[in-house]
């Protein structure tokens, strides 16, 4: 168990370093290098030289990379060009919004998708199953921003039931204290994964229900409810937990669009504002932090799997 965790952490840090290397190389691949990215293509040679000198860009690329890596790993992500503030300060205030949003949506996805998929499997090929499969399939094909946009048009613009934007002064925990304004963004993000998750859960449950131990449970006279809850559901959820880690990148990407849509001051909004103003340090910084968040999330998901599955928990004891 411990060695497993250590291996995952090691693997995760390699991923992070490679992503840092990748963004670093991308900036150097632009004709003229980072100086042109920061100063624009019409900068004169003198200012480019001065920029390179002050930012340590005259040393060999490999030296630059290790300096950069050292800075990034100590949370020195550079200075934002538009805000003139350290990138990490900007990210730190935005990160909590994204983390809370993603976590709440992830939990809701499971709360909705697992019973739905399990119920579909129990009533396989019934009318309910067909309708649910059809609906989730349609949901799966609709891009997340359209779901959000339709919700805004209907509930905020036409019906005036819900606020269309989130208050800019609200803290990340406002999701719990004044949930009304977060209702639409959270459900937008939740819908993103329900289609896929409920399909996995359905097929996993179908497979489990055909197992011998389910027949044994029925044969010893257990009520159908007990069979389903104790024996089938618990076993069918196990493989779904491993999907958390795999679905996190898509969820973080979806959060970016959701934040943009509802004006939540999270990492996504920060990235997009920076993207429109060519504020490269911020864009690269958020990319690195978002990747780190995804990696940590998938390690946590793997640990959850170990907690849920005694076979893994007791391995190596």
């Amino acid at each position, binding site marked *: 168990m411990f060695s497993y965790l250590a291996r995952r952490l090691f*693997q*995760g840090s*390699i*991923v992070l370093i*490679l*992503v840092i290397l*990748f*963004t670093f190389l*991308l*900036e150097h*691949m*632009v004709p003229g290098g980072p100086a042109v*990215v920061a100063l624009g293509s019409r900068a004169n040679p003198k200012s480019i030289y001065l920029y390179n000198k002050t930012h340590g860009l005259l040393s060999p690329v490999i030296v630059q990379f290790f300096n950069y890596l050292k800075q990034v790993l100590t949370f020195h992500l550079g200075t934002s060009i538009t805000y003139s503030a350290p990138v990490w300060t900007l990210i730190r205030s935005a990160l909590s919004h994204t983390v809370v949003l993603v976590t709440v949506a992830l939990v809701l996805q499971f709360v909705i998708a697992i019973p739905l998929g399990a119920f579909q499997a129990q009533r396989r090929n019934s009318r309910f199953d067909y309708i649910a499969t059809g609906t989730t*399939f*349609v949901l*799966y*094909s*609709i*891009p*997340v*921003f*359209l779901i959000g*946009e*339709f919700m*805004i*048009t209907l509930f905020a*613009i*036409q019906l005036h039931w819900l606020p*269309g934007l989130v208050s800019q002064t609200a803290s990340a925990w406002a999701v719990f204290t004044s949930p009304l304004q977060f209702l639409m963004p959270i459900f937008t993000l939740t819908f993103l994964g329900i289609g896929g998750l409920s399909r996995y859960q359905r097929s996993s449950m179908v497979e489990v229900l055909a197992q011998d131990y389910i027949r044994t449970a029925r044969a010893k006279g257990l009520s159908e409810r007990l069979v389903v809850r104790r024996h089938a559901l618990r076993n069918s959820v196990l493989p779904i937990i491993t999907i958390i*880690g*795999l679905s*996190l*990148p*898509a969820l*973080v*990407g979806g959060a*970016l*669009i959701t934040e*943009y849509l509802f004006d939540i001051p999270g990492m996504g909004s920060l*990235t*997009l504002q920076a*993207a*429109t103003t*060519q504020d*490269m340090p911020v*864009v*690269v910084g*958020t*990319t690195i932090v*978002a*990747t780190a968040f*995804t*990696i940590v999330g*998938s390690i946590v998901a793997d640990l959850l799997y170990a907690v849920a599955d005694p076979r893994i928990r007791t391995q190596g004891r």
Partner: protein
Amino acid sequence: METTNNPSEAAVDTTSAGESTAVGGVYTLVWRTFKESRPAIISLCVFIFFLLFSFVGPYLYVSNQTNGFIAGSQTINGMAAANFPWFHSWQMILGGDPSGFDIVGRLMVGGRTALTVGILSGLISTFVGAAWGAIAGFRGKTLDSVMMRFVDIGLSVPGIFLLIVIVVLFKSSSTTVTLTLGLTSWFGSARLIRGETLSLKSREFVSAVRVLGGSDRRIIFRHILPNTVGTMVVIGTFAVADSILALAGLGFIGLGIPLPNTDWGSMLQNAVQYAPDGYWWDIFPAAICIILVVMSLNYMGDALRDGFEVRLQKR
């Protein structure tokens, strides 16, 4: 080997020969399952309609899609063409977009971008993934674990962030977006093809090629990969759908293909800005196009998977 017109016999023949001399037979079999699914047939029609609409449409329905100044200054029935409502005039049946461009023509331009980017990046992602997975699975040992670790890495990075970095650095264009989407989305297909390669490489036809002196490269590219064509077709269909979705998302957040070109996501983003002022209908044309194309691809992918699974069962 004698070619036969009977599809089921042909399917059996391919397995015994290992190579795909009777590929037509396999496809007949897949097509038979495919056409039994009504959603799949409807989807195929929808997809073909959009192909024709985007690539042939502009020749039949000519409209100004390049000069924003002319578009913005024209009037229809005395009303400005900009944000002209839909279903109010035959001249602009779906109305005008916020800059005054005819929305039907705009949809054609956007569809051309979406389908070109989607199909090309879907192809890149499928072929890169398939080659990567087949090489890793066939060679095995250290190379396999190194190559698959790389795939794990790719799968754990939120792609849209990388896409934004690249678009900001290298400017958004069909080429940049196609290459980026294609080269950042092949990790899943590499995994699937590797799995299939592991089971294929222990089959007799592989040993036969080796005994006959075939090189590894020949085995991988001429014998293993052609046998994974079913998986590749299915992956490819879903990959095209995913790419079209990703491009739409990119357009929606304002980083789409710049004017005078456009894509459906950028059209949406344009429309959304005017929706609170009462121009709500602007959203629907592009939204419906995105949903229809993506849904048709997903349904086709599903039906193809069923079709190829039937083939696998008959093995």
